[in-house]
């Protein structure tokens, strides 16, 4: 009798052991699969950054101020940029088929829709990305996929009055065909602009940072195709340019070069290796924020790195000379040699577990 009772009691124990083994094995799964991104509002940054920064996570716009994240808008937002007087934002709202530029207040409320790129016919839609407001706040420059011809869809740099309409927009650059085109405009003083142009060579498509003195001029490539540099960020005093370079590999370098308004000096590598995105200068120009994956999960987190001093440009360096037409690949070869810093620079990870949108540069003031 006792033996039967013991056996009956033993069966549930066997079930518990079997279930326990099943659950235990499930608990051994790699965190890569299990770990989702946290909302920035529930995360305390590891240290407090000065000023105010806006970042994007999964279409939601967040403000980081005094070490606290606050969500200011939701709904497919991207690429916020602050106006020079720090009173408004221009940001991209993206849908499946198109994207538009909006003027927002600092709390994420829409003041005005600047572009109207949606259309019923699929290929009549347009993309607008990378907005940047001019120093006098009179205009906004951006990348826009017009003109386009059938399969050929490339970004050009466009400019439109901030208080005007899209009908007043004017194209500034001519992209190289089928390369994706021109992106990341940075309006400079007067009529000049820095931007990233893509071109094709024997090994594939490469990006170069270009200087265009005024609309209609071809301008000069400031970096070589071989260096494959993009995502330029100009320091607050306009004396240094941070950029991401790959040398044609899947590994990135964060570089900083002196800039005298028209020419780049010798760049130095701040951080080499891995995947780095969207360098953004601190308001005092002492350091750079950027995105990079952290840990095995691969979420892009916010990092900060001090820049230190950079020797200013004293004599113009040889710059790559483009070929005669902007629609042809550049043959630039004369990028200055890259020097590395003597003292080790240690980047600091600011956030953990956020998975911030790495194609939306922070805006920081």
């Amino acid at each position, binding site marked *: 009798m006792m033996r039967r009772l013991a056996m009956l009691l*033993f069966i549930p124990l*066997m079930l518990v*052991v*079997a*279930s*326990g*083994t*099943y659950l235990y*094995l*499930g608990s*051994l*799964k*790699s965190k*890569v*699969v299990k*770990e989702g991104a946290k909302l920035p509002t529930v995360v305390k940054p590891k240290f407090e950054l000065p000023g105010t920064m806006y970042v994007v996570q999964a279409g939601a716009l967040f403000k980081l101020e005094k070490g606290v994240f606050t969500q200011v808008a939701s709904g497919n937002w991207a690429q916020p940029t602050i106006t020079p007087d720090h009173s408004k934002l221009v940001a991209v709202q993206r849908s*499946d*088929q*198109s*994207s538009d530029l909006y003027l927002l207040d600092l709390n994420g409320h829409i003041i005005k829709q600047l572009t109207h790129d949606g259309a019923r016919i*699929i*290929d009549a*839609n347009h*993309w607008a*990305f990378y907005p940047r407001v001019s120093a006098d706040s009179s205009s906004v420059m951006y990348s826009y*996929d017009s003109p386009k011809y059938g*399969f*050929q*869809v*490339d*970004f050009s740099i466009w400019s439109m009055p901030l208080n005007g309409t899209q009908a007043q927009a004017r194209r500034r650059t001519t992209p*190289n065909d*089928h*390369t*994706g085109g021109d*992106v990341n405009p940075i309006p400079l003083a007067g009529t000049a602009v820095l931007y*990233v142009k893509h071109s094709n060579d*024997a*090994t*594939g*498509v490469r*990006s170069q940072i270009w200087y265009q003195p005024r609309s209609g001029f071809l301008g000069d490539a400031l970096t070589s195709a071989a260096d*494959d540099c*993009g*995502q330029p960020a100009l320091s607050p005093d306009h004396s240094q340019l941070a950029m*991401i370079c790959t040398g044609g590999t*899947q*590994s*990135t370098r964060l570089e900083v070069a002196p800039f005298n308004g028209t020419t780049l000096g010798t760049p130095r590598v701040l951080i080499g290796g891995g*995947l*780095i995105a969207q360098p953004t200068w601190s308001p005092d120009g002492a350091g750079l924020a950027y*995105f*990079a*994956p952290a840990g*095995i999960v*691969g979420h*892009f987190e916010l990092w900060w790195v001090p820049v230190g001093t950079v020797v200013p440009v004293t004599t113009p360096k040889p710059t790559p000379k483009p070929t005669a037409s902007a629609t042809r690949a550049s043959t630039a070869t004369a990028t200055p040699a890259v020097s590395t810093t003597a003292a080790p620079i240690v980047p600091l990870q600011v956030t953990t577990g956020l998975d911030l*949108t*790495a*194609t939306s540069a922070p805006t920081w003031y």
Partner: protein
Amino acid sequence: MRLTILVLAALILSSGVGALAYFFPVLAAGVGQTGQKVNVPLVPGLKATATPVAAPGAPFTVLLLGSDDDSKFSADHVLTQSMILVRVNPGSKQVTMLSIPRDLWVPLSTGGTDKIDKAYSYGRASAAIATVQRNFGVHIDDYAWIGLKGLIRLIDQLGGVDVYVTNPVLDDFYPNDIDVKYLYGYTRVAVLPGAQHLDGSHALQWVRSRHDDVNGDFGRSQRQQQVLLAIRAKATTLNAANLPDIVAAMAGEFKTSMSLARIRALLGVASGFNPANIKQIVLLPPTYTSYGFIGAQSVVLPHWAEILPLVRANFP
């Protein structure tokens, strides 16, 4: 004493049943999706079959096949949008990847001359393998086929991949054929440049779009190799406990001639590879290929005098 042994044996048995239940999807897939038999016609000078012949630890070559949405076609008669020869040398921890252009104009093993992506649709894996073996003079030990949804699900199971996008990929005529009723529609795609995290759907957009790539299918091949490397990097962070989820997600979207033992060995060596030891080859024009027309078809013409020495050097 006897009772103690019985109790212990019963508990171990229970634990084994729990483990068996956990890994059952893997075992089922092992029966249904791995170890696929293929009969590859004889090629003079080459070994006859695609069944595993390489000794454990010896270098081996796998033909990776990526297919268009198979719901447009009758089962297993799909075009292969992607063909990548991968040679793995476990000893030296070196990997070589060679992308074969899908429009490459070659004699097919099933007869006639056509674009190489049609080989699979005419004769499934055996025809694809035989066509590559005959034209490239390389022995293929195994193949692995993955469907579009399979790639999406695999990447999502890995928690996405981190890649560096070299240039904007814009496409106004990207096929809108995943999980929709009408399979011949289009949608717009804009993948912006720079380092970023891509989920399965966006990674597929990146590797599949080709309409506005100045290098056409060749540019796409480079992107496919980059995603493969990103998948490899992410896969090294997984462990055996993740396998049931991955297998369940890829049900019906993955087939291979590799045995479970070889897959396990492959995953084992994958984690030990240094990215610097991975060689990527794309048969870019004008050296290795050129664009041309055969009838009304736009095709890629092979320059065998340049291709074959390259293949011999990298796929001995």
